[in-house]
């Protein structure tokens, strides 16, 4: 096996800075790595992944189900990259090891295989027929961007389009864009998965297949701006698509665009909500894309909303637990990670935990329901819509 990052994987000094906020100037010690915090063995930490890669490279470790179990018990939340002081990229090394696992074992562990198969067969990870993709929009009269020219293409994403409990993301976005008088449309049933899940699962061929298809379709339509609800779609389109093919469109997250519409006065929230909230930074918006302020600016613009921060926020945000195939392959671990987040949110005294990603919202909602934490879970757009309603 030839590993392209072999120099880097040997520079980890096992200092465990990848697991907590230990940089100069920090005032409070916070555990940040979900897998290391939960399991405690160094192999689960970001630095540990570098050592696993060394072991594989040197032929000491075989790629087997057990090694896969460790490497896939990681949400790829990128906190290790954020913290590492040696310019190490343990998340990319973990992804690289995942790709080797896929080659050696024929796919990711457990039910994550189904996600890959579904993405390839149905062009969504949920084994849903194509016809389901646009059902949420029935009767809304949304423009078909494949047939008429629009300024903004709203790329809904599989979760907001196909999971009934998450379609409010799409419905809110449409309402808000309408309210702002935006000329927008969607791809309707022609929309396909962005490839984020296959990318993070290490199934590179599948990722390149769907990413390439998306890039070609969107380039051909000549759209300038693609708006996404999902942090995963946003991150993979923005950060990973350019290495697959030339991308001729900008990728913008809904919160970025809504913050801009608020600044321009095209949206005017007026109804006070009287709600104390805390905001959860999705990893793919925050650490992957450095988008921290826009969601907060929206919340701050809503009358009656008081935003209180959790100790682990922004660059130091604790993951929701759902990402990178963890919720599918290891639901108990996903629930534990989400549970830690919900506890932290509840400790702020907020009545609601707000985020900006349907995937995060899904896991956090499940955890709240299971633990009776007494918190409501919202998307940023839920609150903005309520504030605009007469």
């Amino acid at each position, binding site marked *: 096996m030839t590993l392209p990052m072999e120099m*880097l994987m040997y520079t980890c000094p096992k*200092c465990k800075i990848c697991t907590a906020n230990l940089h100069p100037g920090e005032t409070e010690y916070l555990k940040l790595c979900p897998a290391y915090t939960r399991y405690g063995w160094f192999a689960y930490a970001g630095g540990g992944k570098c050592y696993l890669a060394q072991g594989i490279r040197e032929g000491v*470790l075989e790629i087997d189900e057990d090694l896969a179990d460790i490497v896939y018990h990681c949400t790829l939340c990128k906190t290790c990259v954020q913290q590492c002081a040696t310019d190490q990229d343990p998340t990319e090394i973990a992804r690289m090891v995942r790709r080797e696992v896929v080659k050696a074992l024929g796919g990711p562990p457990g039910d994550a295989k189904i996600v890959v198969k579904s993405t390839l067969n149905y062009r969504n990870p949920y084994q849903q027929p194509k016809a389901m993709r646009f059902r949420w929009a029935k009767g809304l009269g949304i423009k078909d961007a494949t047939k008429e020219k629009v300024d903004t293409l709203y790329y809904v994403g599989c979760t907001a389009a196909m999971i009934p409990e998450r379609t409010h993301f799409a419905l809110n976005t449409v309402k808000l864009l309408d309210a702002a008088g935006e000329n927008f449309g969607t791809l309707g049933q022609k929309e396909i998965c962005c490839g984020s899940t296959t990318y993070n699962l290490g199934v590179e061929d599948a990722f390149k297949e769907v990413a390439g298809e998306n890039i070609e379709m969107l380039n051909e339509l000549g759209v300038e701006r693609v708006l996404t609800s999902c942090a995963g779609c946003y991150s993979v389109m923005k950060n990973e698509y350019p290495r697959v093919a030339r991308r001729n469109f900008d990728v913008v997250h809904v919160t970025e665009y809504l913050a801009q519409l608020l600044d321009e006065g095209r949206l005017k929230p007026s109804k006070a909500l009287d709600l104390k909230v805390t905001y959860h930074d999705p990893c793919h918006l925050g650490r992957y894309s450095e988008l921290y302020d826009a969601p907060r600016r929206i919340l701050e613009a809503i009358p009656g909303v008081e935003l209180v921060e959790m100790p682990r926020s922004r660059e130091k945000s604790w993951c929701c637990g759902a990402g990178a195939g963890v919720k599918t392959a290891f639901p108990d671990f996903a629930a534990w990670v989400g549970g830690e987040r919900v506890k932290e949110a509840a400790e702020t005294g907020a009545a609601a935990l707000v985020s900006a990603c349907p995937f995060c919202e899904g896991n956090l909602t499940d955890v709240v329901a299971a633990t009776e934490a007494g918190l409501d879970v919202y998307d940023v757009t839920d609150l903005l819509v309520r504030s605009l309603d007469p």
Partner: protein
Amino acid sequence: MRVLESPLDSKLAERATAELLEALGEEKVTTRRAILFTYSGTALPLPKTMPDVVVRPKTVEDVQVVLRIADRLVVPVTPISSGTLEPSVFPRAGGIVLDMYGMDEIVEINTDAAYAVIEPGVGIGKFVRAIRPHGFRATLGSYPPGNSVLGNYHLKGHGSHRASGIDSEVLGLEVVLPDGTIVRTGSKAFEDRYPGIGWHAQWGPLPDLRGIFLNACGTLGIITKMAARIYALNDVQALPVMGFDSYGDAVEFMKVVSRANLVEHCVTWHWGLYTIMNILASGGNVEDSSDYLKIFMTEPWEHPGDRPYCLTLNIMTGYEDDVDTHTRLLEKVAKGLGGRPMNDELVERFPGTWDYFKTHGIDHEPCTHFMKGFGLGYGFMHILYAEPKDVVPLERFGLEFIWNRGLQYGTTYYSHCLDQGRSIFLRLTPFVDPVDEAEHEKALSIYHDYIEEGMKRYGASTIRYDGIVNYVDRAGGFGELLKRIKKAIDPNNILNPGLKMYEGGW
């Protein structure tokens, strides 16, 4: 890197594992090969050995359970805390690795008596954040902030914040012996009979046994708690830096000012090291820097011309008036020795270096600035202590010795003034490509030759026991006593036997 399989009989390993699993459960005991591999050695590029099982104790009772099983079955036990850069904690004999990083409680912060009691898994970053709100700081070394405080202090890590008259940060220890006996040292030895007693005194009415566990690398007992000195954050923090054109002048300066009680601690940095730090801490890429090339193309004992040969950092805290007066006196002493104050010049010309010095010496924060340098590979621990008259020629000898042996990268150093200049610590730092095994072999050979020559020619003493050179047999009666102590405490030789501290090389 060479990775050896465990030499332990596999049936014995299986039996030990079964008993450990039954006693402690799967959460704390694992034989998963991928996990074992990450405990097969430290981050140093030295040969590794797979352990048979890793245990992650959470309590002192867990440690007792492990040691009783291991002692009965005669299975090696190697304790590791952070497992970063020390050569002393490789499980060369296989068996059990105790991952002590899971015991991570700060048990007590005693602001009245100025000490804190911590477990082995408390990293220095966590520690300083816990004591700062109480108005205290800790002794810091230039090691990553996740590193175990206990691991460092126990190995006599020479942090940059000690009061110069104090030779150890350790007030007391709690140690578990192979038969499960719990030992507490100093005043705390009497806890069972006098439950109110604290850790404040390192000696009681009996001999001071604390020392036999320090620098013993887990060969005489497993340390489960440490009472460490902490220091008040006084009104003012200051860090006057003086530049000198020779190491000899800097050593003389450190000796004078520490004996006059003008500083809490002083340390000298060679021009190569402070220049590298400027590049690293400024966010630069060392390999693109002309300064970087200069460091590795210039013979390190040569004066760099456009900057002082070395800088001496003087850590001071106290009342403002005292600090001001002491700073003026430092400048006077420095000028008398041909040196000069460097703070303004540092800020202007070497802002990265100054940022590192300030973070470390004024903010009392563990630093990460230097960690990008790990991309060059790790510095081996070429540490020697020598008396002031000997350390000056040793510095020149060491720089020439390493340079002439032809390592790919250059060599630089820092040097602490210890115990008011009774002993001067000199750590040379050659860097080694992390994936070049031939270079590692060469570096290791240079390392041992240098230590041997330093001891022979300059009356120097080393500190790190690395399992390669047999110091016990060179230590005369002391070595004999140590062997007897080892036999009495650990008759089955289960505690870190892979280090072979008592038996010669490996």
